């Protein structure tokens, strides 16, 4: 994590204690801490007045919430339609092989999280891979490997 995490209380204070703010709070906590830790989940539930079981079902329904800590670097392979046509599946598979994790998961050393995403809006450069905030257009298996070695 690059910056010091905002105190959880400060995040909770952003929203009134109503059930409708459950998702917004989960999003803010996810953004801040990279995942939703059980103790933070409990605090959120107390704040918005939603039973823990319901909050877990919401958190597992939506793909953007992670219940485990995420890696230091986020690798996102675009598997949007244009990128699919240009071989993004092969890229995703080779990353799975190289990192030893399936998509949606994080390497054991917490270095990398591998995900597939839909269109990044840069189809002109398909296939696209995003590593943290960098776009890599016309991505190749070799190019990505080289990039990962450098970071």
């Amino acid at each position, binding site marked *: 994590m690059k910056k010091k995490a905002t105190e959880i209380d400060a995040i909770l204070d952003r929203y009134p204690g109503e059930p409708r703010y459950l998702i917004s709070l989960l999003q803010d906590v996810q953004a801040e801490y990279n995942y939703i830790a059980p103790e933070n989940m409990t605090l959120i539930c107390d704040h918005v007045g939603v039973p823990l079981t319901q909050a877990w079902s919401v958190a597992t*329904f*939506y793909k953007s919430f992670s219940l485990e800590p995420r890696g230091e670097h986020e690798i996102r392979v675009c598997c*949007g*339609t244009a990128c699919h046509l240009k071989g993004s599946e*092969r890229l995703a598979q080779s990353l799975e092989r190289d990192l030893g994790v399936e998509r949606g998961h994080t390497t054991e050393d917490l270095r990398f999280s591998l995900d597939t995403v839909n*269109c990044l*809006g840069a189809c*002109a450069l398909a296939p696209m891979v995003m590593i943290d905030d960098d776009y890599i257009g016309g991505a*190749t298996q*070799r190019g990505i490997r080289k990039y990962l070695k450098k970071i």
Partner: protein
Amino acid sequence: MDRVNKAEDLRELRNRLIAAQDTSRPVVRVCLGPGCLAQGADKVAGAFKKAIKDRGLQADVKPLIKETGCHGFCKLGPLVNLDPSGLFYAQVKPEDVEEIVEQTLVKGQVVDRLLYTENGNQYQTASEIPFYAMQQKIATRNLGLIDPILLEDAIINGAYLAAAKALSYMKPEDVVKELELSGLRGRGGAGFPTGRKWRSAVDAAKKSPGMVYIVCNGDEGDPGAFMDRAIMEGDPHGVLEGMLIEAYAVGANQGFLYVRTEYPIAVKNLKRALDQARDLGMLGQNILGTGFDFDVQINRGAGAFVCGESTALFSSIEGKAGEPRAKYIRSVERGLWGRPTVLNNVETLSNVPVIIDEGGDWYAHIGPANSPGTKAFSLVGKVKNVGLVEVPMGVPLSRIVEDIGGGVPGKDHFKAVQTGGPSGGCIPYSLKDVAVDFDSLIKIGSMMGSGGMIVMDDTDCVVDVARYFLHFLEEESCGKCLPCRLGLKGMVEFLDRFSRGEGSEEELDELVSLGEAIKDGALCALGGSAPNPVLTTIRYFRDEYLAHIVDKKCPAGVCKSLITYSIDTDKCTGCGLCVRNCPQSCITGETKTPHTINGEACVRCGMCLESCKFGAINVA
């Protein structure tokens, strides 16, 4: 900026801003849309700022730098447009900036090598380029033109004038009537007439007095589309203005903007625009002194495609899991918190101000009578001019793909075009002249959808594409109803088998029946339209399915189980690059003599193909 307290104030403010503009001052517009950004446009913009600062340019040549949303021709990014000369520079790199400043800004000369050339013609301005010349921009009118973070820029270009006209000089009823007259149909996919939807909400509110809500759908679920993103990023005030007019028409005081979570720049630009609009007095209490109150809240989606569906989206805004519900009662009558709620798509709403400005009748005369107006598409895949285009409805498909899109690079023509994303269908080349409008596309088994347009050539396999979309939807199904949950799984199994060369012609027919059954039985349109890509590809490309099933061949060379990698001994120089890269270590051969691939161990990852510098790897 001053607050506007009545319609007249807004017009005066605009006049003042226009008068204060120094028209002789050059403007440099750098496109920072997603496509250009990925090609380093931010560095180009940075280079301009630096170059201008370093040189200490004189006031008369010191340009105004505007960072705009997607200008359209993403393939040529990063794009730089200059005013007043109108010059259009393509594929600009940070290293080119110094020359642009020196030659064009200081000396007033053209940098020829940065101009766009096509078929031997060199173009100085964007409007002359065929890609742009054949378009008509309404929903995307301000993209590439205004800097989305500058409220002044939006106002100078007419933002909120239509809202002022509606709120101050029209009754809500007149606004609804204008929309009915325009014939505008929803751009989110289903094509429901917008005016009629607004009318139902008004009627529902009469029956049950109290809160009415409006929601703008910016969830953009189609995995291969970016029109709504481009609009939200590049013209946030246009979206807010559409919402304000809609709210006034249906009597809503609270609006929600549901934005896909993967669009952080859209969220940022919309949030800033909300604050600006509140400060300006175009959102909040007693807007323009009319007594009408309206405000907007932004909700970020959380990564579930099904949340684009109306009832699921409402659940999500209420803080729950986004599962659709049966629509015995329509959501315009009982939506958010059980109150009348109108849901409209981003592009739909960004048409609204123009309709109020120019009149419904004007709009109704663009395109065919049943599908009036223009439609934005993200034109992608195997097409030369990848980008964002907006054309009148009803133009032939070939106009978009071949004339605007420049056709398929290196090929005579396309093989198929997928419209409507995962809910749509695959249109074969033989139907290239089909009119692109809601009804004509449905007639041939596809649909308009939200505007993804994916061009495929003979190296794309239709079985694979159908499987791709179905896999996507199977994963995204919320699982609430049986036909979708189990049916899609069953369809995927069929397609997985076909792609491995298993199955029979009878099974192909079974797949069709299963697809038809799901269409009839699913609770929401996710399941209801999921079979479309499969059904259309079977309808138009049956032979290709049979090639897989009967001949055990993938003619396009895509389906992994049916292809083999081999080395062309004539071309192989024995350099050994592939040997080093093959993860399976299944390539052997002496240095400087042709190599061979051991087919048994090969996992068809394509590493050798990617690394070979001599084109010696064959895939068949």
